[in-house]
């Protein structure tokens, strides 16, 4: 008999996705559809004095411009507190507030019109720290609520004060206190947010499509906003390009805007966000400030825990009520503690608001509490394992909220043991300890973290969901559910439940996209409840159908109990008599009797409870347990961390689809690695600095190590086939495990994530001090510009992000190009990797000249002892070029690390040099090889040294009418050169260079240094070789002593030239390390 549950099953929707046929929100275009755009605020806090829409309205193609007062109905929405204006009236609460919405015939026109709206503000000083916001003297962000406090959850168990008093007077106990801080995290689903609204005349209402995570929530919000009845609003979700909790509240307000425009124009309207808009306005994971204070017996038993947490809710309350509630339940971690006092408060600030994100209030507390457990163990001379064994939950333990864990298998120690064994943790501790004693530069670490997590919504709200299963006369069936496929694989899981329960095959099951009009409100797809809630509802429907069929076939089989028959492989069998009926025949028989073979499934969670005053109660009906182990390697020269391995063991009750479950683990672990190491959504004085993926660093494929996914099964009595939840726990543990691993490697402690280079190296952040009024322009490199961008005035940012209305002239020959330039200054475009990206952000228009088709500029040749490279040669063509490989290996080292395959196949060497970014990766090695460039105009040509061509950050000597046409590099002498190139960045691919070093050396017959070149990248304001260091080295014997002497020289130079900069406390020592590593590597190689 074929079992379905627990096997590896292919996704139902994989075919349309791999072929590009799946229809996502932005792929929907309706007849006569208008395109919408929003106008975001330009300041983080203040009053709106005047809005002038004249120019926008006069733009050809604009159909409607709406302001707050144009909306006839309810204007504010919000899940608990309606504090969120869909279009703000006269005050701005954060930079992502929407002041006006526009609909036009084309997207381009709509976005342009949005830019043309003129707004006068009276800017006010914003509040950017939630702790600040809670001070009594602070200005009120939403005065109508009389306080900046959004919510406060207390939890009281036992008597904490008494326990602390006792600890203070006892020799056997200590008091242990720690502070932690966690950052914003952006969901960064690769599909940006989009909604489409269309009038539905039949119901005098609207239909809404798009990337909608929770259709029923969207329906409710739209209904409130428009005053339409629920049955006049139909939400039809599209294929979701990822969500992770991110396409909820933001989509709801976007839906309201699209609906408002659709109703105003009586036409379909699509509102699609660019990545920048989505990152600016969309909500994030809450930043937390956490303080933990413990009373601990010296043998390791925690007697009391006092926890104070302040969460940053941002401009709106949104889901803060729910997110922080989960935190208060789970804040102690999976440890049994007699006396607990927890207070968590969420407060308004003038920053992007915060709400649901996979993990939902747990990654923050786990980062703190699991980091703390390791530090505590260290303090007491125990191992991280021992401290958890002493305090960890066992069967029957009582949680902080007083809930006895008796109704499910408490598998905390089981998952820890399994994970540690898989990771070979205990041996590696010793092995790495030994390795670290001898390794100079790299240190290895291993660390773990563990958690428990309540499944589904718990006492957060009513916890129900719906499903429809409809079996057709031929035995095939449809499923519809009230929960949503967001990419996680729910449909496949549900189909498996149907196949398992009814014994039919997966191929015979179709999943219908649910609409809110076709099924009962299934609640939100959140809290990892997809499997446990939706799976139960699907099973409920199947059980009803099964009972109906059974009522007919039992006579044929001559049985009385359902359990006497086996339903599998499309057959119903009596194992006793071997009698069997095809499933389809059984269905037909049932229908012939006039009995229904379709059913509505419903699930309601078992009872839970919560006392708001004391924080006591049975918060969730069941819990899951997980443990992750991180292995890392730290470069002590720079603070860069590389992941070596991750082990993730999760008790999920029961595996339904093994492929899907493993995918959830890998995906969640990767997001946890991002949270631990890379992702830092930066908001400075209320201004969003991380607007796109160049600044918000997602892990690339090269940043994710091998992940061992271990699925531990302890079936739960409440789950369908025993299944519980998995999606969220997989994300919540990584950051803490990584932190513990790095702490082990370096014997230091870190109290904030992500573990950026500075945090690891210096133990603190370095921030450039800026006032709110200084809205700093976007820089792609991390060296401050000495001058503003080359040849351009400062221009305000635009929201258009489209460049179609800029003119390009194409030149086919160099002569033609030079002539065009002699008439009028053009911006030159070749690969477009810099130019197009920059143009998206600039408001005024330039004339472009495309030189990518000029053959002469794409040739590389050997001429008179030089290699001459055409400026329009792409980096991939150079990497593949044998001449370049032969003569300039150091150059190849540098350019191979640029961007990605896609970028290298477009970006050109000329573009890299002309752009003259301090982080340009082709420059350092070209300086070493002493390259020159040829500059041409109709008036003639000249050859200048590259070092004279680049004047500074983003500055070069090119005149108005000139083009850089060639790069000329002398062929080095035919002798043995030692070389070393190192590029420091936070990631392992798609990296922006933080600093780099290119070094080349040769030695004479007496083994003295003959030639030496040392070239830093992104260190000084202007590119320069370190000639004084080179001169010092030449002619000397190459020894470690000499290396230290030259480092001392470097130190002087760095101090005098970049010593005062905000970044120098990191850059100076690290660049010294980089030079030391360079020279030692060459010394070793010699």
């Amino acid at each position, binding site marked *: 008999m074929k079992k379905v549950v627990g096997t590896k099953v292919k996704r139902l929707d994989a075919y349309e996705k791999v*072929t*590009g046929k799946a229809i996502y929100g932005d792929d929907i275009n309706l007849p006569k559809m208008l395109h919408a755009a929003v106008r975001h605020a330009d300041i983080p806090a203040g009053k709106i004095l005047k809005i002038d829409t004249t120019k926008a309205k006069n733009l050809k193609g604009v159909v409607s411009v709406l302001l707050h007062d144009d909306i006839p109905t309810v204007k504010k929405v919000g899940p608990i507190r309606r504090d969120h204006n869909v279009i703000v009236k006269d005050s701005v609460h954060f930079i992502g507030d929407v002041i006006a919405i526009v609909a036009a015939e084309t997207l381009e026109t709509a976005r342009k019109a949005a830019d043309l709206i003129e707004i006068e503000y009276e800017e006010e000083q914003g509040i950017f720290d939630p702790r600040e916001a809670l001070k009594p003297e602070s200005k009120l962000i939403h005065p109508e609520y009389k306080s900046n406090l959004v919510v406060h959850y207390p939890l009281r168990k036992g008597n904490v004060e008494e326990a602390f008093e006792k600890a203070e007077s006892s020799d056997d106990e200590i008091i242990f206190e720690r502070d932690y801080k966690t950052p914003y995290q952006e969901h960064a689903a690769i599909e940006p947010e989009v909604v489409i609204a269309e009038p539905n005349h039949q119901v005098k209402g609207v239909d809404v499509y798009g990337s909608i995570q929770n259709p029923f929530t969207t329906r409710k919000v739209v209904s409130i906003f428009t005053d339409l009845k629920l049955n006049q609003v139909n939400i039809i979700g599209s294929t979701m390009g990822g969500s992770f909790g991110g396409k909820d509240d933001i989509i709801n307000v976007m839906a309201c805007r699209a609906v408002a425009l659709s109703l105003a124009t009586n036409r379909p309207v699509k509102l699609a966000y660019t990545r920048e808009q989505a990152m600016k306005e969309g909500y994030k994971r809450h930043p937390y400030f956490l303080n933990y204070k413990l009373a601990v017996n010296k043998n390791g038993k925690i007697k009391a825990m006092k926890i104070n947490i302040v969460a940053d809710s941002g401009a709106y309350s949104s889901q803060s009520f729910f997110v922080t509630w989960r935190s208060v339940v789970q804040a102690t971690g999976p440890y049994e503690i007699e006396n607990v006092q927890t207070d968590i408060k969420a407060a308004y600030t003038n920053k992007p608001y915060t709400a649901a994100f996979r993990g939902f209030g747990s990654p923050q507390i786990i980062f703190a509490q699991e980091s703390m457990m390791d530090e505590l163990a260290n303090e007491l001379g125990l191992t991280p394992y021992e401290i958890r064994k002493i305090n960890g939950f066992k069967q029957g333990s009582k949680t902080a909220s007083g809930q006895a864990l008796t109704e499910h298998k408490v598998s905390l120690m089981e998952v820890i043991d399994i994970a540690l064994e898989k990771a070979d943790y205990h041996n590696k501790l010793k092995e790495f300890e030994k390795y670290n004693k001898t390794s100079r530069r790299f240190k290895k670490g291993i660390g773990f973290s563990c958690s428990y997590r309540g499944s589904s919504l718990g006492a957060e709200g009513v916890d129900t969901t719906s499903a429809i299963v409809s079996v057709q006369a031929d035995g095939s069936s449809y499923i519809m559910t009230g929960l949503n496929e967001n990419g996680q694989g729910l449909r496949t899981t549900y189909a498996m439940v149907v196949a398992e329960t009814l014994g039919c095959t997966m191929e015979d099951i179709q999943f219908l996209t649910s609409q809110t009009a076709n099924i009962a409100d299934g609640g939100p797809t959140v809290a990892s409840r997809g499997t446990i809630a939706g799976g139960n509802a699907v099973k409920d429907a199947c059980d009803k159908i099964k009972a109906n069929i059974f009522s007919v076939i039992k006579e044929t089989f001559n049985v009385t109990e359902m359990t006497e028959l086996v339903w599998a492989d499309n057959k119903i069998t009596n194992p006793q008599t071997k009698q069997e009926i095809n499933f389809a025949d059984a269905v037909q028989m049932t229908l012939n009797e006039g009995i229904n073979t379709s059913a509505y499934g419903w699930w309601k969670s078992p009872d839970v409870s919560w006392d708001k005053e004391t924080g006591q109660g049975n918060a969730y009906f069941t819990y899951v347990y997980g443990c992750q182990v991180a292995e890392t390697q730290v470069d002590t020269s720079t603070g860069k961390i590389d992941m070596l391995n991750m082990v993730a063991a999760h008790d999920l009750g029961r595996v339904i689809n093994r492929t899907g479950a493993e995918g959830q683990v890998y995906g969640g672990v990767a997001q946890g690695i991002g949270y631990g190491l890379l992702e830092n959504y930066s908001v400075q004085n209320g201004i969003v600095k991380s607007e796109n993926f*160049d600044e918000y660093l997602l892990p690339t494929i090269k940043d994710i190590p091998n992940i061992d996914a271990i699925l531990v099964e302890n079936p739960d009595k409440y789950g369908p086939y025993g299944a519980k939840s998995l999606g969220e726990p997989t994300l919540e543990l990584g950051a803490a495990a990584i932190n513990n691993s790095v702490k082990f490697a370096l014997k230091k402690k870190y109290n904030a994530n992500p573990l950026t280079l500075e945090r690891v190296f210096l133990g603190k952040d370095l921030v450039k001090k800026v006032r709110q009024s200084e809205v700093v322009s976007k820089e792609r490199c991390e060296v401050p510009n000495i001058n503003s961008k080359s040849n351009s005035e400062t221009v305000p940012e635009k929201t258009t992000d489209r460049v179609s209305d800029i003119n*390009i002239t194409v030149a086919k020959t160099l002569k033609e190009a030079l002539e065009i330039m002699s008439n009028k200054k053009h911006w030159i475009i070749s690969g477009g990797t810099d130019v*197009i990206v920059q143009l998206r952000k600039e408001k005024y228009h330039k004339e472009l000249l495309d030189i990518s088709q000029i053959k002469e500029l794409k040739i590389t040749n050997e001429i008179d002892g030089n290699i001459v490279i055409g400026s329009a040669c792409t980096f991939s063509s150079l990497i593949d070029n044998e001449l370049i490989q032969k003569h300039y290996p150091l150059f190849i080292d540098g350019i191979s690390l640029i961007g990605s395959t896609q970028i290298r196949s477009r970006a050109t060497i000329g573009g890299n040099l002309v752009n003259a970014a301090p982080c340009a990766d082709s420059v350092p090695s070209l300086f070493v090889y002493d390259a020159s460039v040829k500059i041409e105009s109709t008036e003639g040509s000249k050859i200048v040294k590259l070092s004279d061509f680049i004047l500074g950050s983003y500055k070069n000597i090119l005149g108005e009418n000139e083009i850089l046409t060639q790069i000329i590099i002398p062929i080095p002498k035919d002798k043995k050169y030692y070389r070393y190139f190192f590029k420091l960045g936070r990631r392992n691919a798609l990296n922006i260079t933080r600093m780099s070093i290119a070094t080349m050396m040769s030695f004479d017959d007496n083994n003295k240094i003959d030639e030496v070149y040392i070239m830093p990248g992104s260190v000084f304001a202007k590119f320069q070789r370190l000639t004084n260091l080179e001169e010092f080295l030449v002619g000397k014997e190459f020894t470690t002593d000499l290396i230290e002497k030259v480092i001392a020289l470097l130190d002087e130079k760095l101090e005098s030239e970049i010593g005062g900069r905000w970044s120098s406390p990191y850059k100076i020592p690290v660049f010294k390390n980089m030079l030391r590593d360079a020279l030692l590597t060459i010394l070793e190689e010699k």
Partner: protein
Amino acid sequence: MNKIKVSFKVNNKDYEIETTPLRRLLDILREDLKLMGTKEGCGEGECGACSVLIDGELSLACITPATQLEGKEILTIEGISDKDGEPSYIQKAFIDKGAVQCGFCTPGFVMATHKYIKDGGSNDETKIKEALSGNFCRCTGYAKIVDGVKEAIVRHNDKEAK
């Protein structure tokens, strides 16, 4: 705004279109040719969701202007399937190995894999990762994508051997 005429091939079909010079290939594909399989994730050359092949080079449609399309041969996800319209061996390997979750990044990954295998890419994990390092996936943690690519290489080699 002046318009230009450009002629090019997409998935072996000839097109001549009139458009503004800086119009992105991405918009031409999605809006003019209604080829919706190529996706936009960032619009600035970071995420790889818009990856296509232009004259055999793996390129980003979001930063390729119309002026650079003249005479080019473009291959998109819609042109990847086998002759009979069945998914190609790469696509099948992705399905079989569970390389797809939300699927928004998938067309880009399929294109990058296609390019890698076409260039004779080996089963070496480091090389596979290098070849796919210009594509973000937020759902899968990449593990099963790597499995999918490895499987595709095996199937490709089997095919070649036959």
